[in-house]
């Protein structure tokens, strides 16, 4: 079901700063910020009143906070790639955008202190910093791995780094940190820090590679998936992935309401993007 806290509103842009290849954008929202949890996302209408873009764009919530005056702040990390994200990144402070938030599931927080490894790819690091803070405040040990194709695509602001015990960086081209992919460094980190739990967010191929590791080692893997979404609120059925339910049945499951945070070990990742055999209703 849809996130019960979801609210639709026109939110003013408070600031929009270029950081590396990303835009860090801050929006003024009301108490809605209170309802946001790490992992939730926001759906934003793009292109203005005469837009040719009919669908909202989803963005992971980077940070949500309440100010003393009772107004809330919502922060996003936007990669200006296509028409919609470029439009959003070109909006300036003072302009308003229509958004719906919080949407989707949040990262589950363990009731006991555990050793958590947070893995982010590209702008997938965005929701991990708020998560790291929460985990820290619950007494967890938090290690982080961030990967990207190249250094400019690593999003790791200073204040974010403060809440982690260690930060490992990988880049495909070796322009920062270890040359290679996050999945290359995972096994060693899991062992070294005696990881109980992996949280991840990034491209689907990365999540699939992590799952291969977590399934093998047998540790919990909460991942935030990114499947193309038309509605973001559960009514269109475009955003599905094959996921095994608690009843053992594999269903094409909506990632906008039953995700984006899902149990990675239960997702039937399939590169070929088929309907795997055994899916209910195939």
């Amino acid at each position, binding site marked *: *079901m*849809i996130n*019960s806290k*979801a609210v*639709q509103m026109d939110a003013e842009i408070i600031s929009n700063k270029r950081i590396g290849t990303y835009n860090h954008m801050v929006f003024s929202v009301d108490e809605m910020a209170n309802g946001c949890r790490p992992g939730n996302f926001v759906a934003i*209408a793009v292109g203005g009143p005469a837009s*040719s*873009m*009919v*669908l*909202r764009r989803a963005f992971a919530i980077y940070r949500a906070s309440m100010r003393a005056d009772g107004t809330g702040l919502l922060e996003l990390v936007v990669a200006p790639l296509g028409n919609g994200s470029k439009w959003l990144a070109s909006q300036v402070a003072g302009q308003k955008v*229509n958004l*719906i938030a919080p949407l989707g599931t949040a990262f589950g927080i363990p009731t006991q202190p555990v050793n958590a490894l947070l893995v982010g790819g590209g702008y997938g690091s965005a929701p991990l910093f708020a998560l790291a803070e929460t985990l820290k405040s619950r007494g967890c040990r938090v290690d982080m791995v961030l990967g990207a194709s190249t250094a400019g695509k690593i999003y790791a602001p200073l204040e974010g780094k403060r809440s982690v015990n260690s930060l490992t960086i990988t880049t495909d081209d070796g322009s920062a940190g270890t040359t290679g992919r996050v999945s290359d460094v995972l096994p060693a980190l899991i062992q070294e820090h005696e990881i109980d739990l992996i949280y991840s967010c990034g491209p689907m191929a990365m999540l699939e590679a992590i799952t291969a590791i977590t399934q093998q080692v047998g540790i919990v893997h909460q991942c935030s998936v990114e*499947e*193309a979404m*038309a*509605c*973001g*609120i*559960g*009514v*269109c*059925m*475009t*955003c*599905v*992935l094959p996921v095994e339910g608690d009843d053992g049945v594999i*269903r*094409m499951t909506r990632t906008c*309401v039953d995700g984006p945070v899902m149990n990675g070990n239960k997702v039937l990742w399939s590169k070929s*993007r*088929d*309907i795997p055999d055994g*899916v*209910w*209703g*195939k």
Partner: protein
Amino acid sequence: MNFNFGTDIAGTTFPNPIFTASGCAGSGKELVHFFSLSDLGAIVTKSIMLKPRSGRATPRMAETPSGMLNSIGLQGPGIDLFLENDIPWLRDQGARIIVSIAGETVEDYAVLARKLRTVSGLSAIEVNISCPNVENRGQVFACNPETARDAIAAVRRNIGGELPIIAKLSPDVTDITAIAQSVVEAGADSLALINTLLGMVIDTNTLSPKLSQRTGGLSGPAIRPIAVRAIYQVRAALPTIPIVGMGGVANGRDAFELVLAGANAISVGTATFGNPMAAITIKNELEELCIARGFNSFVEAVSYAHRTESK
């Protein structure tokens, strides 16, 4: 105010003419978070088939200029679970319910109709015949007057007397009035116009079709001129048939355009993806527009753009 916003589809009265479009509101469960389902004229449910359906592989959608493609492939729980879970819930919401059904064979339509025959609390049944006919080389039922007629006739024979049948047609045909005529002869009480147009997007990075099924259905404002034309043509050919119009309605002005062309009610589809409140906003704007243009009732506005021809 004295304005009468009610509309009538084959003997069933709806308090207002704004419906959801099949497949664009699920069973309404998420939309209640934004408004009360009873505020709309009716909820048209996602087309339901006999058995549970996984639907197609992803990617299932691609945005296009002022529109989108989808190839969901009718994912759903199948008629039995649907009747068990969704219908009672919708009744509890006070919603007027139009059940959309879809089949792969003429017999599927017949069985679905029999299953719905005894269900209470339904306002109408919409028959989505824009589905591949597995017994006829996968040709879409709605693309051929004979197969369209067979599907509707099967529903007519099995549904019993009361429930109005709305036949939903595809615009992907040479002459939509011929199909309309054919399904009305077969017993359709009303027509839903239009379903999506067959389209394709090729990803210029992967150099392959973007959707897993290659083609998908085009919806949204891009197709509105096609919807208006189809409704206008069918209204001219069949002056009295109730028409549920849809295709790219994003605001009250758009809805009004389809109404003037001949629609007795309007289904809102893709617009809900851009704005969960779209149907409610459209309803309010349409009422204001009808009043501003001097109509005393919604019914007066229906087909009004045809008046010059009847003069």
